[in-house]
């Protein structure tokens, strides 16, 4: 065989195989893989994205779906660098989850600049869909506004004075601001607050200050995970809660109730977007997830599942992975799954959906392992999240 026809033949072969293997659609799940919140998101979120991709059939617009993951190590610079590398070198089409508000805001800037989509689930600062909103960012999980709704039932039942222990980073400060306005709106008062460095391992000094303030509610605005667990343990040690005093965190994860135990957490109220034992559909999903990955999904895992499915549906409807077209398509499709009920994707990127006010069960009420919450009320989507009319996002025209 002469060399030139051979090369042509080889070229045809390669082109043929390239045609047979279209470029994949790449989903990048950016996580805290080993740090203090990795049991709430971490590998479990990567698994949830994979489960959604498999449920979708493994392919979208004729292209295989690839789920990639990386560890941001709780460092904003690392997270932003991974986002850039994923977009510039690996052609990742959408970034998912991105827990830790500081890192989420760093990644938010990268995607705004690169015109690539991101769906934030684990980051709770509402700046993503408010002051720092952009046409490419979507926020799926709870935000600080929604969390602060927990104060309303507290004030209604007479627990109307508050003291905050606030983690000194974006999460803590935005949650405190949101809680302050929610408290003022509901007729409660704030007696004081103290800012806590992130590295703190002993909260006793701060707890004693809170105790000295005489506030009826001590709110631990500390992100979920081992830090919150420590703070709860120590609050109990110093006898902060009794008949007329409560310790709450405005947000509580099922996993933290598990660690702290029901005797320490019973009666605690919080707003959650997902609870595995809520209804038949959530139980079926959770059992399926557990059968494959060995543990029940956290609310963040369920959120990543929902976000991944919605993204894939958007791509299918748009017929392309072009970020702006997919984003437009995602506003048109119906989003209704095990995580997001009665959901609407607003112009500022915020997905509003029903939330659930839950109360931690007493040890006697809990029938099965991980059976921890009583469903107190369903908060309709429109009330659960900040209405568009109050939005600070420049994309929203008032």
């Amino acid at each position: 065989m002469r060399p030139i026809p051979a090369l042509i033949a080889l070229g045809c072969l390669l082109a043929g195989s390239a045609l047979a293997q279209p470029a994949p659609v790449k989903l990048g799940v950016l996580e805290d893989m080993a740090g203090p919140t990795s049991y709430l998101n971490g590998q479990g979120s990567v698994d949830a994205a994979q489960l959604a991709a498999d449920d979708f059939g493994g392919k979208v617009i004729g292209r295989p779906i690839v789920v990639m993951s990386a560890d941001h190590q709780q460092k904003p610079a690392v997270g932003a660098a991974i986002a850039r590398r994923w977009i510039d070198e690996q052609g990742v089409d959408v970034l998912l989850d991105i827990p830790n508000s500081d890192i989420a805001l760093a990644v938010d800037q990268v995607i705004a600049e690169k015109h690539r989509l991101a769906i934030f689930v684990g980051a709770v600062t509402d700046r993503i869909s408010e002051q720092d909103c952009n046409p490419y960012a979507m926020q799926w999980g709870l935000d600080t506004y929604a969390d602060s709704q927990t104060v309303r039932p507290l004030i209604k039942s007479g627990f109307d004075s508050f003291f905050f222990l606030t983690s000194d980073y974006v999460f803590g400060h935005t949650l405190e601001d949101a809680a302050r306005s929610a408290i003022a709106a509901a007729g409660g008062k704030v007696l004081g607050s103290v800012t806590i460095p992130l590295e703190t391992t002993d909260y006793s000094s701060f707890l004693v200050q809170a105790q000295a303030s005489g506030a009826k509610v001590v709110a631990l605005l500390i992100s979920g995970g081992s830090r919150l667990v420590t703070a709860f343990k120590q609050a109990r040690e110093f006898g902060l809660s009794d008949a007329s005093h409560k310790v709450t965190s405005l947000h509580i994860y099922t996993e933290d109730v598990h660690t702290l135990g029901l005797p320490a957490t019973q009666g605690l109220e919080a707003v959650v977007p997902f609870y595995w034992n809520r209804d038949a559909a959530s139980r079926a999903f959770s059992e399926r997830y557990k059968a494959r990955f060995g543990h029940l999904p956290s609310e963040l895992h369920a959120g990543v599942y929902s976000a991944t499915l919605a993204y894939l549906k958007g791509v299918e409807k748009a017929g392309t992975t072009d970020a702006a077209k997919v984003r437009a398509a995602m506003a048109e499709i119906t989003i209704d799954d095990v995580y997001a009920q009665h959901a609407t994707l607003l112009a500022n990127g915020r997905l509003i959906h029903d939330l659930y006010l839950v109360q931690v069960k007493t040890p006697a009420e809990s029938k099965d392992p991980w059976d921890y919450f009583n469903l107190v009320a369903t908060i309709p989507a429109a009330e659960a999240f900040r209405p568009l009319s109050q939005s600070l996002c420049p994309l929203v025209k008032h």
Partner: protein
Amino acid sequence: MILGVPPALLFSQVMLGLINGAFYALMSLGLAVIFGLLNIINFVHGALFMMGAMLAWLLASYVGLGYWWALFIAPAMVGVFALMLERLFVRRLHGVDPLYGLLLTFGLALVIEGVFRVKFGTQGMGYDIPPSLQGAFRLGFMVLPVYRAWVVAAAVLLCLLIWLAVEKTRLGSVLRAATENAALVQAFGINVPRLVTLIYALGGALAAFAGVLGAPITSVDPNMGQNIVIVAFAVVTIGGLGSIAGPIVMGFVVGLIEGLTKVFYPDASSVAIFVLMILVLLIRPAGLFGRAA
């Protein structure tokens, strides 16, 4: 009001500072003994602290042995583990620059924590205060949990015993002589390498003991040793490398300073220790109790 703070609040913060100081003292003492006697910057100390707490949890959940058992068994097990570490790894760096030891033990800490993370995840483990130590003393100006009082008592007693052992007994004098001139001590028929292994194991056991003490009041998880080891190093540096009394005294002082920062300027409470360390290093590079090299 004292400096704009109600006296009751101030006294309670002083008390809490001293309680935390007890922890720092216990952690730093192990480090100081290992550094002072063996010249090893033992970064694996935080991981051994974590192992102590995790073992307490494992003993409770899989074997059914409670807190008081764990207080003896966990340090013993970690002591044996430290002994193996010394025989297998740390020993090989004897006589080279201590920085190599720091790198090695830092790596070992990462490996140990990694193994625990893979096996148990980062979710905290539930570990409660033993029933006999639950409750609190009402002191008027503050509520003092019984458990914290016990921690201080146990830490002070242990620190005192170790200080006496190193400074006042024959074994202690042999140890100190061995660090001054190992060859000479060996010539007197004393097995110095065995002595070194023993001290390293005891240091490890001490870290594990602190871990068990801490388990009921902090989150028990594979990452729990990372912060405290840094603080303990700062305390040893402030107290003076090579001194035994230094880290004990400075542990309490640092706890106190940290406690007061938490009242007057909470934002700075986690850096106060390091500011103090920098100041001490500038003024007295050998540390407050250290002997100048």
